[in-house]
């Protein structure tokens, strides 16, 4: 993964350009390349390609928005995914189009200077900047000391930062749903951004990591239309999370035919059959991997022969085991059955003994019917 060419990012170049159009021209991006990006953005947002010029014109005139990127309890995987995208155009463009004023991993400044940059950006763009969060954070009832930056707890920093924000984008499953830090037993009391942010719109871009194009697509829509995308039940952009992996999976025909890989090295695996039995969570995972793929459309986990982990879904870490089929319940089913069955059989045997005694007692005490008695009733 490390060997492919890297188009010269991170790119924390401060620019003086006021609009995106200017910034692009400053960067030497051709008109053609820009339109191509706009067309791709349109398709990401499930808009007709005819809207690409409109997007282009909107973007060209858009003021470069300020983006403050907060990294809490995270692994930097989301940033890595975003910056290491194979294709140099779309994602790099978007990074260049915004004014990324604060980002631990990408900024040159450190320590007090870094925090100063955040405060400056907040003041300069009050009410207009975007806050991107990756990583979960210790919740209000947790010990804030589990995760701090410059002595400030994550929760406090988030509350301060979103105060003047237009919207919050929770990038990655940790920020969106709590993710790995929140997995049982959740030692740090981790919560998702939406658990603590109630007064600002929160867009969840889940995935571990999320698809880079989905992050940029959301940002592009905000820049283009100044509004937020339509969201699903989990606050995710419906354009990217509207369909399940299973429904879009190229291996789906094998599922319907009942052709499965049973192990990772059997004939079914080699023939590319369905990975359901190997624990694929495709049916419950809503994401765009199956259509957009990764690394510039090179491949994606299922194509590489690995079942979907369902990483874009809440609690995916605790959802019953990555290699257990979706329909297999959590817990020791067989143990429960046999234990309860054995107890039940014992209780039932006891009840049967009592029942037999009842019948035996009835037999012992029953007074035989006689003809004389019968005659009395006539």
């Amino acid at each position, binding site marked *: 993964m490390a060997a492919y060419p890297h188009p010269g990012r991170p790119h924390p170049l401060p620019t003086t350009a006021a609009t995106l159009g200017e910034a692009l021209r400053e960067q030497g991006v051709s008109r053609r390349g820009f339109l191509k990006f706009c067309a791709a953005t349109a398709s990401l947002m499930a808009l007709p390609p005819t809207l690409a010029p409109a997007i282009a014109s909107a973007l060209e005139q858009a003021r470069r928005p300020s983006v403050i990127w907060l990294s809490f309890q995270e692994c930097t995987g989301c940033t890595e995914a975003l910056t290491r995208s194979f294709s140099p155009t779309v994602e790099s463009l978007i990074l260049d189009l915004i004014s990324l004023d604060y980002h631990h991993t990408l900024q040159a400044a450190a320590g007090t200077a870094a925090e100063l940059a955040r405060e400056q950006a907040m003041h300069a763009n009050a009410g207009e900047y975007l806050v991107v969060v990756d990583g979960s954070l210790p919740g209000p009832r947790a010990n804030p000391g589990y995760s701090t930056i410059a002595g400030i707890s994550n929760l406090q920093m988030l509350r301060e930062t979103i105060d003047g924000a237009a919207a919050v984008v929770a990038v990655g499953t940790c920020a969106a749903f709590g993710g790995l830090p929140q997995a049982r037993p959740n030692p740090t009391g981790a919560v998702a951004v939406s658990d603590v942010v109630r007064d600002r719109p929160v867009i969840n871009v889940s995935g571990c990591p999320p698809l880079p194009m989905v992050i940029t697509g959301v940002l592009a829509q905000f820049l283009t239309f100044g509004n937020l995308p339509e969201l699903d039940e989990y606050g995710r952009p419906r354009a990217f999370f509207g369909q399940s992996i299973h429904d879009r999976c190229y291996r789906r025909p094998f599922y319907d035919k009942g052709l499965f890989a049973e192990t990772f090295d059997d004939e079914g695996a080699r023939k590319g059959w369905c990975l359901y039995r190997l624990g694929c969570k495709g049916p419950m995972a809503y994401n765009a991997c199956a259509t957009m793929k990764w690394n510039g459309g090179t491949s994606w986990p299922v194509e590489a022969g690995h079942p979907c982990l369902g990483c874009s879904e809440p609690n995916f870490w605790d959802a019953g085991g990555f290699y257990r089929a979706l329909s297999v319940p959590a817990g020791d089913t067989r143990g429960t059955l046999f234990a309860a069955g054995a107890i039940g059989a014992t209780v039932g045997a006891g*009840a049967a003994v009592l029942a037999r005694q009842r*019948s035996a007692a009835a037999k012992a005490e029953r*007074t035989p*019917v*006689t003809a004389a008695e019968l*005659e009395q009733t*006539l």
Partner: protein
Amino acid sequence: MTSVANPAIAPGATEADLDQTTPAGSFSLARGLVAWREEMDAAVAAFFSSCVHCGLCASACPFYVETGDPQYTPIHKLEPLRLLWEQEYTLWGRLKVKAGLDQRRVTDAMLAQWEPLLYDSCSMCGRCSLVCPVGNDIQYMIRKAREGMVASGHAPEGLVAASVRAVTTGSPMGLQWKTLEVQIKHVETATGLTVPIDQPAADYLVLLSSMEIINFPEYLEAITKIFDHAGVSWTLSTQCFEATNAGIQIGSKDIAAQLVQRVVDAAEALAVKNVISPECGHAYTAIRWEGPNVIQRAYPFKVWHIIEVLDQLRAQGRLQTEGKEDDRLSLHDPCNLARKSGVIQQQRRLMDLIAGNFVDLKEHGEFQWCCGAGGGVSSNERAEPLKLAAFKRKKAQIEEVEPERMVTMCATCRTQLEEGLEEFNMDIPVVGLTELIADHLVEKG
């Protein structure tokens, strides 16, 4: 006479049980419930656990089919017994009663309501038991349910009277040996043969049914001829000639045991190897299947229905017949003989000997339809209208194949067929198979 002044109060019987007005005599609800508790077994528990109220048993019951009245659905006839099972023989049911969640009780009023269902509208033909998709042997449970009905004083008058007569006079119809003796003389005169009486160590002890003696005297003459023809060693017993068992019909194993014991005593006194039940369905069931259980021991002799014996003689080449009936004959299988005892092919092989134009009813053998008179229905005057209604199923079956005569091998069935066909103005005579065989024996040269 056993004192029954203080009928035992059933364990588990509630105060509500005791509040019920005690019916006539010493019978009581509590006594009935005790009888039912004794009857509970694994099969009953499995049956009641399995019923899903599909109602298919109704389609197998002539009483439902011909009246269309849903209360005659066979499984419904067992509701009081089922309730007792649920409340006393399932842990869940016991807990519900204890917790006060189940206020239903088997009451005398309930049993009174169910009496016509268990007696008047059920001939214990067992057809429902063959049809039930979950495998409930409903007839098996009806038989058990009647035990509690007798003990609680809810048996029909006609059957009570028949039971009393059977025990006190030796015959449900009050028939005495004197009457039979007259008939024996008549047979001996007509045939020139001797009817063996009280012959020790005979191969076969022949039993008769009162109904045969009165209505179908041809039977005795027929077997006298056949046994002479085949060289069978047989005898009647002055100690016991009656095969029928009102105890089985009313559903009292105590009465049944008394009556069966007479047969066993007579057979043992003469040291016979075999006992032959006459052309009567329930008598065969009573002696063959229930007898050893009501007296709680196996017999030192075998029990046969006359048709089984005739078929054995045929197989041994001891029945030489000549000529065949050329009219169209059909066969009514008595429930007790066919479905409930597995005697199905025997009568057909015998028919082959003597019938040139035999046609089976469409549903026959184990799936035959009851004539409507069995299981005590014919002794229960109150059930007359239902008995006739149920017969319509048989009538429809007969109409399907249009025989000129019906053949059967049970006096109750035969009487019912004759009366029923007459009621509907159908000119189809009914004959006993044994007589028919006797008519075709090759004359001794």
